[in-house]
């Protein structure tokens, strides 16, 4: 009969209306700045550069291979390669970026830079409260601002970081083994040159 469904619908909304005053667990929203939803481990927004150890410049894993810069769909990464070398995460002498900038107003958080990085140097951050009133100075993030420690990475993405740590430990053990086999270190730079082209 016409009207029965209408009355049922009205009863349902009335139940919701009154119920929201009686039981708190009906209210599904979080009152944001005061209370926060627990963060999902796989959440991401902008990339950051991982470094090992205490000094961000010395421990930076990035070897300035420029793959992320080339792969970035909106072209928000800008890298300048060094002329000298410093040891990378596995102790091999490698180039390092003298400039590494990400324009976060352009970045679309696609994670492609992370997927293509062969050195586990760039990862996705979870800090989303980045609003600023300085649109020219504060949205182009330099190397220093992007550098974050491996401890921080372990804290925000524990599962992923454990896998990366295991991979790196294996690579370090291999490099140490190779060093024992007395291969002189300067024989390596050919790989860095290939990536540059």
């Amino acid at each position, binding site marked *: 009969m*016409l009207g029965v469904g209408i009355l049922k619908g*009205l009863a*349902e909304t009335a139940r*919701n*209306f009154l119920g929201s005053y009686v039981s708190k667990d009906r209210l*599904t929203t979080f009152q944001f700045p005061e209370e926060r939803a627990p963060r999902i481990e796989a959440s991401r927004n902008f990339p950051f550069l991982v470094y090992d150890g205490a000094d961000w410049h010395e421990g930076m894993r990035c070897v300035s291979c420029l793959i992320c810069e080339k792969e970035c769909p909106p072209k928000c990464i800008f890298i300048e390669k060094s002329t000298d070398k410093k040891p990378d995460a596995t102790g091999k002498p490698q180039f390092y970026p003298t400039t590494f900038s990400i324009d976060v107003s352009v970045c679309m958080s696609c994670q492609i830079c992370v997927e293509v990085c062969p050195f586990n140097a760039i990862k996705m951050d979870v800090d989303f409260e980045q609003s600023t009133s300085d649109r020219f100075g504060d949205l182009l993030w330099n190397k220093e601002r992007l550098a974050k420690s491996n401890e921080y990475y372990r804290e925000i993405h524990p599962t992923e970081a454990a896998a990366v740590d295991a991979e790196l430990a294996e690579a370090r053990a291999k490099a140490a083994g190779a060093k024992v086999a007395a291969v002189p270190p300067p024989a390596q730079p050919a790989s860095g040159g290939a990536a540059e082209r």
Partner: protein
Amino acid sequence: MTPETIDQIFVLSKGWLLGYVLAALQPIGSAILSVVPVLVVFPLLFAITTVLERKGLGRIQNRYGPNRVGPYGIWQPIADGIKSLTKEDIVPRTADQVVHFLAPLLLVLAAFLAYAVLPIGKNMVITNLNAGLLFFFAVGSMVELAVFMAGWSSRSKYSLLGAMRAVAQMISYEVPLVLASIVVIMASGSLSTVDIVNMQATYTGIWPHWFLFTPWGFAGFILFMIAATAESNRAPFDLPEGESEIIAGYYIEYSGFKFALFFLGEYLGMFATSGLAITLFLGGWAAPFSFLTWIPSYLWFFLKLLTLIAAFIWARGTFPRLRMDQLMGLAWKFMLPMTLLNIFTAGVWHFMPTGISRWLVCTFLIVAPWMLLSRGLKQRKKLQVRTYRFAE
């Protein structure tokens, strides 16, 4: 002070203030003193309604609703007002500048004019026209003109679509709106809103003589409210706005304060039609029981008005938007026959002797066609489980 003095306090203070006005200026002074309170009270009610509506809809959807500006978000309308006043007022380059400017003003003007014949309390009406109801429907149809002016002058396909929908909808629903209120004119024998309320403001024992408490009055009230919802373009009849399909319909090209004026006009229209529903069926300013007459009449009017507004919000939070053909089908296939039958029933009621027999006959005369109509309308529709070829 006696209850009568409190009830008549606004009428008495108006008379007292008029005593200080020169005799030659008395008519205009009287008009100003009657009009200004309406111009103040109803926009204030609009401000309160916006926040109550948002909070009510929030609760219906298990949210809190606005709760940031002031305690429990009660200053939200002030923040909204400041926002809409300080926003840039953009007029499209290709728009018809004059008509584009006049449309929101005409809408608000038409909405305000309707209040001229609404008795909001005992002896509290701006003008007691002897064709008050006719005046109300006449100015009510000015809204259609304003809406079409807005849609046409904006020079946008969305606004024109919205205006087309609005005009089609409002003209269609004006027919059942007027026909539903004809039963009251038949019963009271008057077009004056004041006389209609005075007829209902009498009691048998403790029970009032509201037209709602008759079979034709109840059916008329329901039909009137459905038509009033469609007339004021509110959900589920908000096709002219249709935020999800034609963005905002006829006021898509309006911003800033003109947009706020459209909102004001819509809500004022809603209050006016609710006020008319109260006047026609719910006894106007009359108390629901004879022992409650000591409460001032204007308080009863606003209590009833707030109840009807709550019903509007409840309906908005419950029903999804109708499709255009469903909207027209409801108007012409269901509302129109039902209102015509309701007029016939009111006639039967008038000529039958008082007693239980006319109750039974009139109830049957309304319920039976209603059931037949709802069955008949359903049979022609093939209701089936929808199958999807590509999305499952």
